[in-house]
């Protein structure tokens, strides 16, 4: 049944949810719903654009949880799509993969790249929990802390070097801290990322005369409103290597867990200026199925 769920992910969300709900009432709920986060655009456990220290997936009996996700963002002048999968092993290690596509749609013509010209990249991630437990350790301020790396490889290397990018692949390093404040029904996350990536890597790595790592920040805060429903805000800073006025990303989101296996995240994102086109705002929708 869960396999069907995953296969239906793109199209048949509602169907799938009903099937899953019919399973057993008893197993529903589980580890606090939503506190495991959803898959962010890079495939790592987190919010939509920010990274969490939590290891993805609800822990299962043998200690391995996995999920798949599909995400779409329709911006003013572009479309962003991503899909991926992640496994959480013994609530300690997270391995993830995501494929991202950045479709220039009609804007491709104006950029001289051609209609529907699409940048894409693959992101292979690993995250290890170092200390703390974001949920259990309610009697201390110590957050759960994880470190991670993401190897990213972008397509269209010709266009990327024309734009000035030094490389079409790169590695990001990050430290993330997360804490669920149950007393306040609040989740706080912060991450520091060392990166050379332009637009998270879709526009390559480094720029003219600039191949250094930059220290960037990701933060998010979410309120747990019901057992299934959370709402929050995210912010992510980015380097500006290409001289294309790359802006910070921000969003407001709601996440809804239909059950332990299926959640949907909707957001209004503001990605700022992208490749000379300003005010890239729009709707974000992501579906995630865990098993």
């Amino acid at each position, binding site marked *: 049944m869960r396999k069907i769920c995953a296969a239906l992910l793109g199209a048949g969300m509602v169907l799938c949810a009903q099937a899953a709900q019919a399973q057993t009432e*008893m*197993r*529903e*709920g*589980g*580890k*606090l719903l939503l506190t495991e986060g959803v898959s962010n655009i890079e495939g790592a456990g987190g919010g939509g654009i920010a990274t969490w220290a939590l290891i993805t997936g609800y*822990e*299962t*009996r043998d200690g391995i949880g996995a999920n798949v996700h599909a995400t779409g963002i329709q911006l003013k002048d572009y479309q962003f799509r991503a899909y991926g999968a992640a496994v959480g092993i013994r*609530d300690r290690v997270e391995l993830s993969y995501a494929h991202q596509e950045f479709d220039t749609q009609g804007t491709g013509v104006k950029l001289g790249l051609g209609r529907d010209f699409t940048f894409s990249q693959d992101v292979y991630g690993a995250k290890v929990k170092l200390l*703390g*437990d974001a*949920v*259990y*350790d*309610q*009697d*201390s*301020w*110590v*957050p759960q802390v994880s470190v991670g790396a993401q190897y990213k490889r972008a397509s269209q290397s010709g266009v990327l070097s024309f734009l000035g990018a030094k490389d079409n692949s790169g590695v990001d390093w990050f*430290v993330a*801290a997360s*804490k669920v*404040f*149950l*007393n306040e*029904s609040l989740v*706080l996350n*912060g*991450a*520091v990322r060392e990166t050379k990536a332009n637009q998270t890597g879709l526009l390559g790595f480094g720029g003219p005369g600039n191949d250094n790592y930059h220290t960037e920040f990701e*933060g998010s805060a979410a309120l*747990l*409103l*019901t*057992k299934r429903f959370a709402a929050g805000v995210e912010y992510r800073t980015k380097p500006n290597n290409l001289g294309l006025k790359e802006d910070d990303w921000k969003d407001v989101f709601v996440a809804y867990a239909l059950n332990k296996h299926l959640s949907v995240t909707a957001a209004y994102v503001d990605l700022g200026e992208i490749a000379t086109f300003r005010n890239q705002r729009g709707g974000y929708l992501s579906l995630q199925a865990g098993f």
Partner: protein
Amino acid sequence: MIQALLFAAAVATTPAPAAAPTFKIEHPSTKYPGEEEIADYAHAPANAGTTPFEGDGMWKAFHEKAGVDRVVDELVDRSLADPRISDIFKSHDMVRLRRTLKEQFCYLLNGGCDYSGRDMKTVHKDMGLQNTDFNALVEHLQVAMDHEKIGFRDQNRFLAKLAPMQRQAVER
């Protein structure tokens, strides 16, 4: 924020494990007819695992004694009916568990009860409990609190008290 969190991490102190004032020795077998005989043990409020809430807000939110009794009974009923964890409860004294859990919840919610049970570490020792078991129990508690119509934020405040007991109950 990271810095703030890390700083907090550095100054945070984990409360010392129950170096509790021992008030008296409990002789459960003579005191609670209907319960199985167990060895005598030291009776102390600190056995409850943590300190109670202040004020009567939480006690009222749980609908006082009648509400807490309903929540505990449903929690135990659901745990016994859950194939993932029911085996762990078999061969244990459920009459005593219901009584001591009701006392413990009442004590923590500041309902004015005395917790007469044993401490969390001793009592769950050698059960080989895993996080999965702990989470299953929390899941049933959440459902029981839902059925008692306890507000979500108050549920979470109570769970915030219980969550650190994972370190005492779960043996890795």
